């Protein structure tokens, strides 16, 4: 079973993401911010990280930057959840090492379709 780390400071978004993914048979780990996510990532590897961008303590961009420095996360798909449709945030994310993004708002189907893009 593929494992996914879902990172979002908003509990409702986190629940929605996690519920959807669990329903599709993925193992889901949750974190409320980048710091929490990074500490989980240091203890185990996952098949995919989905992270919000704007979060307290450590934002999504810094999280991606940090994850990419971990040997076991060198090639792991890292997706950002972003409402910013402006190219700027995406560029920042890409520069930090993000694989891609999911533009909010999205529905569960869209989420699953995107996840299927990176977990085969």
């Amino acid at each position, binding site marked *: 079973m593929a494992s996914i780390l879902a990172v979002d*400071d*908003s*509990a*409702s*978004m986190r*629940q*929605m993401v996690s*519920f*959807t993914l669990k*329903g*599709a048979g993925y193992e889901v780990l949750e974190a409320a911010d980048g710091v929490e996510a990074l500490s989980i990532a240091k203890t185990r590897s996952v098949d995919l990280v989905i992270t*919000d961008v*704007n*979060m*307290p303590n450590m934002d999504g961009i810094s999280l991606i930057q940090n994850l*990419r420095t971990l040997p076991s996360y*060198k*090639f*792991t*798909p*890292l997706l950002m*959840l972003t*409402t*910013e*449709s*402006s190219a700027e945030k995406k*560029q920042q994310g*890409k520069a930090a*090492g*993000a*694989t*891609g*993004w999911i533009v*909010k*708002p*999205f*529905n*569960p*189907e869209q989420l*699953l379709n995107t996840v299927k*893009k*990176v977990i*085969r």
Partner: protein
Amino acid sequence: MTIDMAQFHQVFFDESFEGLDVMESGLLNMDPGTADTEEINSIFRAAHSIKGGSGTFGFTEISNFTHVMETLLDEMRDGRREVTAVAVDALLRSVDVLREMLKAVSADDTIDMDDVQAQQSELEAILNNSESAAPAAGANSAQPAADGAEAITGWRVVFRPLPHMMRTGNDPLRIIQELTDLGDVKVEGDASLLPRLAELDPEECFLSWVITVNEALEKSQISEVFDWVEDDCELSIVPIVTEAVAEQVEAPEVESAVQASEPAQPERRQGERRAEDRRSPVDRRQNDRRSGGGASGSSSIRVDINKIDGLINMVGELVITQSMLSMLGEDFTIDRVERLQDGLAQLERHTRELQESVMQIRMLPISFTFSRFPRLVHDLSSKMGKKIELKMSGEQTEVDKTVIEKIGDPLVHLVRNSLDHGIEMPEVRKAAGKPETGTVHLSAAHRGGNIIIEIRDDGKGLDKHRIESKAIERGLITEEHNLTDQQIYELIFQAGFSTAEQISDVSGRGVGMDVVRKNINELGGSIEIESEMGKGSAIIIRLPLTLAILDGQTIAVGDEIYIVPLVSIIESIQLKPDMINLVAGRGETFKLRNDYLPIVRLHEVFGIESVKTTDLMSGLLVVVEGDGKRCGLFVDDLIGQQQVVIKSLEANYKRVDGLSGATILGDGSVALILDIPGIIRLSSQKYSVADLKQSA
């Protein structure tokens, strides 16, 4: 897969209302001109989360409105826009509008779009008010639809990943697979750039591909697949036009010929997609309705995870005890009766602890109530033309949920009173030699087994003579009364009493103070006034601690056991003869480093006859502090430290001097909790009667 999105709505509403509170208090803290980036950031994040959530859960009006707020905040955050008082006020009003929208949606009501439109226009006016307003607006027109694709029957894609592409987590194979999902695809690999094995870096990509997609797709459908990697590869997507031209000429045959492999595929896909589009709004409406029903009925409480963990631990203990008891019961013999008793006692203790912990969940920080005041003070003071600073302390003091619910309105009334009647107009204050800005200090604390909430202002204070004459006028007292100042202040709690010269819409029509007192009495509390003409006044609300936890030191005097709150203990010492001093008429003192502190013999203050020793050298001295006074409390022995649940003595009996409450010990017995300031008072009363016989 169908997912009922309504199940996340309640959480979304809860966190959105919290987010609004964050935004509100953040905006109130913001000083125009010198905005703190971290502050703006947290406001921005809150708006951003609401926008994201509302978009996801289908509350389009909310996400559209929040988008405008977010745009403004974003510009402030990046320093592209100055933080002006006008903008902050507009944002504050927007928070209100947003709150109304969320309330409406959560109650399944319709949103008042007039208000929303008006507020949105105000925000947009601010946004358009400078050249820097444009960038975010362009976002909506993000991807213009690919044009002129009708005649195209296929695409030729040249995909050459840059060497680093895999390090972004993107896998070329995955992308090609995704393309094959779109229909009939032919892939040709190109390994010409592959270096020799010795030079090959396995983490880099050297292959490239030419992909032919034999489907009449929109260009965007193809470029979407490469969306994430457009900067990590060389990419060209060229339409295959030859067939398209042919199609124009002899359309039916060529189309069927070219797409022979999967003729009906794209048609069906499109059909599916339309069906989905049609379905989703209906789903949303249903979801909204369902969540609306749930929201109005339930009231939820957010609980600190530590409290939950504590509960789980306790249940664990309970299970252990239970299994121990059932093992004991399986082959019980009378010689094991002692173990049975132990087990039962343990069971009782754990059950009680569990009960208390469950009750503890009801305890919430009073900040839930306090958080509304910055806004209230901000709005009212500008309305009244006064300059007022609100200070708050002790917001983390935990009180019962019932108190949170019931104390809000009385506090609002009292704070309004302070603002309206207490704090003077800036000119008046200046003339009186006071700073123009008045201060209202709202504080909460656990003290002496009570929760004390104070509203203290540096305004003009209560006018004793005005209250007096008003009371006489109203027939509440006669002219020959001999009331103390305190009793005169108390008069304002009488029904129908108001000293405001003019009725204002701020503090109402004198229906307030009696109701305030009634509400507080209903919570088992009391209310007191302190005031000094020209200096200010303070309203002190004392609420009983129906429940609170305290770290305590258990002490023994004779066969009695008491709890001393750990916070009031400085240290415990064994007295030596050379430390003791007698001060004539004032009893015993001892020297602690450079201070002489009075010795308070607990057995005397409390009349404990079973006291083990009255010899100062053989007992222990607990150095305690209360209300800024220190003394040495003489006891027989220290037993141990433990957390105790404070129980009120007043609930069934009355307040007792020197005690702040009681608690239940592990064996089910009651131990009384000392009120250190009270004990110091009791003891000084004793010595004021000059009990020289004892100290001689």
